[in-house]
């Protein structure tokens, strides 16, 4: 077993254990942190495949931004764990069925002939830039899907903001732009006057 | 025109730069730090520091136990007990000042008809145990004996104004 394999199995083991942790952790915050660990070790595996752009973007986007917001929400929720666990055994067969189905599908896909011969990563020259290749592909061959996905995300964002935006009447708030715009001349008048003699 | 000027002023952070210029200038200004144990700020003759009890030149203590200082003390830091001495004079048997209560207002000094309780220029005193700053009569007299020359000079300098 080469050094490469050792690193791969190490990352894979961490990923699987962290994935189990996400499901099995009692505390939702711990579960979220396990998910972070799973992302990080996944990024490690991608790095082994020389997909450094994807690996770093995974960390940057999912770990650095998405999971932070996720943690925010999970930490602030007042979760009743007992209530959440109530239906566990009732739904267990259903969950087990789906899990089994997914395992079966993955074995089927990964074990099929099309993917079976791609067992080792393609090794590139030292000056090969994964980032450049990805960019070239995204902006030539896949430019329409890429742009459409971007527009859909933008629409979702605008919609979310529009749904929550409301102007309430009679609420006293500060208008910060107004405050920032205030100048000395608007507020202060300097009056020149002679000093008056002391009143006695 | 003014709007455009303000726009550029805002985006070029003009006011922030002005503020930074000020602090930048002061960086090279003469420093006013007093290096305390080696250097000290000047003290006036009315400085109100550690309390002391004074004596007359004969060695007789000045305090006659009139309790005016106890009455005037806003922090209730003074505690006095009075008794008649063998020679028939009225003297204190107990004269305590709790320096942890004292606010160094100087009222006791002002109210004293015989200039017995005074505040000296001493301000670097300390206590290492609880109760160390509870000054009793012998301690106050000892402070007075030690600094009598300075105390007398300060009273003389202040006498014109009293």
């Amino acid at each position, binding site marked *: 077993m080469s050094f490469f394999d050792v690193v791969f199995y190490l990352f894979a083991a961490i990923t699987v254990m962290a994935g189990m942790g996400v499901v099995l952790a009692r505390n939702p915050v711990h579960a979220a942190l396990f998910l972070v660990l799973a992302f990080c070790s996944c990024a490690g595996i991608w790095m082994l495949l020389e997909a450094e752009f994807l690996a770093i973007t995974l960390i940057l986007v999912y770990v650095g931004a998405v999971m932070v917001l996720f943690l925010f929400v999970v930490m602030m929720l007042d979760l009743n764990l007992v209530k959440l666990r109530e239906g566990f055994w009732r739904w267990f067969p259903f969950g087990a069925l789906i899990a089994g189905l997914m395992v079966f599908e993955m074995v089927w896909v990964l074990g099929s002939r099309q993917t079976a011969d791609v067992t080792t990563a393609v090794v590139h020259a030292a000056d090969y830039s994964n980032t450049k290749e990805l960019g070239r592909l995204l902006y030539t061959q896949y430019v329409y899907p890429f742009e459409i996905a971007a527009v859909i995300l933008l629409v979702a964002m605008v919609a979310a903001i529009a749904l929550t935006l409301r102007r309430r009447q009679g609420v006293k708030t500060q208008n910060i732009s107004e405050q920032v715009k205030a100048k000395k001349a608007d507020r202060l008048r300097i009056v020149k006057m002679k000093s008056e003699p002391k009143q006695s | 025109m003014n709007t455009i000027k303000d726009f550029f002023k805002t985006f070029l952070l003009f006011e*922030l730069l002005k503020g930074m210029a000020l602090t930048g200038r*002061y960086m090279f200004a003469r420093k*006013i730090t007093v290096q305390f144990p080696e250097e000290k700020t000047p003290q006036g003759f009315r400085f109100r520091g550690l309390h002391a009890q004074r004596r007359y030149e004969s060695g007789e203590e000045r305090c006659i136990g009139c309790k005016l200082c106890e009455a005037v003390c806003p922090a209730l830091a003074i505690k006095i007990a009075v008794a008649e001495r063998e020679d028939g004079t009225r003297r204190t048997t107990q004269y305590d000042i709790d320096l942890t209560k004292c606010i160094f207002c100087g009222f006791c000094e002002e109210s004293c008809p015989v200039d017995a309780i005074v505040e000296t220029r001493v301000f670097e005193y300390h206590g290492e145990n609880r109760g160390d700053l509870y000054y009793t009569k012998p301690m106050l007299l000892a402070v007075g004996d030690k600094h009598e020359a300075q105390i007398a000079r300060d009273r003389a300098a202040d006498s014109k104004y009293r």
Partner: protein
Amino acid sequence: MMEWLQPIQTLLGPAWLPIWTVLKIVLIIAPLMGGVAYLTLAERKVIGWMQIRIGPNRVGYFGLLQPLADGLKLFMKEIIIPSGANKFLFILAPIMTLMPALAAWAVVPFNAELVLSNVNAGLLYILAMTSLGVYGVIIAGWASNSKYAFLGCLRSAAQIVSYEIAMGFALVCVLMAAQSLNLGDIVRAQHGNYGMLNWYIIPLFPVFLVYLISGVAETNRAPFDVAEGESEIVAGFHVEYSGMAFALFFLGEYANMILIAFLTSIMFLGGWLSPVPFLPDSIVWMFAKVAFVLFLFLWFRATFPRYRYDQLMRLGWKIFIPISLLWVVVVGAWMQTSYWLW
């Protein structure tokens, strides 16, 4: 270039590579920690001078041993773990703050040859590492089991995440101009015949300001230090920490400051390039630029009053992000014309 190391290399055989790498890491981290220590002294001195004071001058000549004394003090102190705190996460949090701050140094070039690992996606790597720093804050606040620490962690984590976006867009401008994610190539792209005029600070001036100010906010430094706010609140997310665990938060903050200063000089101020054409490029310029940016950090702290939290968020979301986005478009259009001289 390292011929004199050849005999040691043959002596160690295959163990040479890991040992040499660890040695290189130590060669970066050790001076960095020294820099952090003396940055604290410099901060106290500079702020003292600006407030017409002298600053620390008792421990050693000119106060030069002050950082050592402070470190020793923190080292001797007890680490108090609050009751009900999650012990593992409580100890992990300061490590999570310091770790990314140090890991990011792997790709920072000091001059044309001196870089630990010459990665093509260096800029992305740095962005990813700095975005991990927020976990230290969040975990610290949550694991302390204290509402004050928790509120503080929410405040500063939201701040860090918000300013990261503006920072990211500012860097997008840089990588568009340099057409590379490699930090060394970014510096080389600023090389030209006119010295200072070839640096990206000229065409990218608005995003330079955005980057610098976001950098101050990102490291939770004054005037954006609502996390610490020593004159208003005791501290934010690290209120329950003491001793060396607390010191790690501070090491992380100052290491991040130095990192931001390095990145600013690499991406906008031409790295190791000389500001005038007739002087040679050298690592000295790099350190001079870094020292200048760090001095700016201290200068800001001595000058500006603290931002209110809502103003801080407004500045990040409503001003910096639009400006940097706009400049991405401007730079993109500008580069298509023949007037792009960089």
